[in-house]
């Protein structure tokens, strides 16, 4: 055992002597290197982001928000049996209702 250990120790000793001056490295270089990369939070204020160039005008905004909300055509129409004018379906004809109410007033 001891004979083998000796055989290993001998070349090691030779290596250390050959390295020579590297044995005395400055302490500062041995410390971990800090690159100081700034995080995203640090530079956020100086970054330019994509923003609208102009305020959206009143017209543009109203057009956009009223899109698809136009008044619908009244298609459910028919003729009044009492006077023949066009009226909305399921509703009494305003002309006839007015006349009926007037006739009541006259009778009273």
């Amino acid at each position, binding site marked *: 055992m001891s004979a083998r250990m000796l055989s290993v120790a001998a070349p090691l000793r030779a290596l250390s002597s050959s390295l020579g001056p590297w044995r005395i490295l400055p302490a500062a270089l041995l410390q971990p290197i800090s690159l100081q990369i700034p995080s995203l939070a640090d530079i956020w204020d100086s970054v330019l982001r994509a923003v609208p160039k102009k305020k959206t005008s009143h017209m543009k905004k109203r057009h956009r928000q009223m899109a698809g909300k136009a008044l619908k055509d009244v298609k459910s129409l028919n003729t009044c*049996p*009492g*006077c*023949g004018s066009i009226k*909305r379906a*399921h*509703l*009494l004809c*305003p002309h*006839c*209702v007015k006349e*009926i109410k007037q*006739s*009541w007033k006259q009778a009273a």
Partner: protein
Amino acid sequence: MAGGAGKYRHLSRKSSHRQALLRNLVTSLFENESITTTWAKAKETQRLADKLITLGKKNTEASRRRALEIFYKPHQIVPKLFGELRERYATRPGGYTRVLRIEPRNQFEFYKKPRGDKSPRDPKPVDQAESAILELVDGPKDVRFAMTARAVARQREKGLQTPNQLTMLNVGKVTRFRKDGVEELEDAIKELSIKKEHGRGNEVER
């Protein structure tokens, strides 16, 4: 009502306010035979009015007391309910009132002012709400009766002795339980045609 559909319309009012509104409407209905209001209010008033007429037809001391609690003019309306209206609806099995949709009013109406006050009148807000006429069926102010009379009169004027199917249906509805319904309808039609001839005569003179 939170969670699920309510059993009645709340009409955006608290209970006491709604109760007062319905009592007012039903008082006006029995007083005037026909009222014009929003469709939702008309439907709610219809419920109450039909129940009250049922009370009238029961004609007991208990029902009379219950009716007295509802009206704002009890001494004017309760005798009418237990007299005239009870007789009118004696043979009719329910359905004493009718709601007819009409065009919402779209003209300015104004708040009333005391006489002599000549400052400009305040316009009432007009909200285009769905309107309706609520009427007592077979009464003197039955709009469907009057409309049917007009329809028949017009069709006869055009030379059709038998009115169209829908008008025939309405004639049936209007005359079925009305006392001397057919004769009354004929009278109304005659009156209309006389009025029309009169109107034409005036136009010619001009």
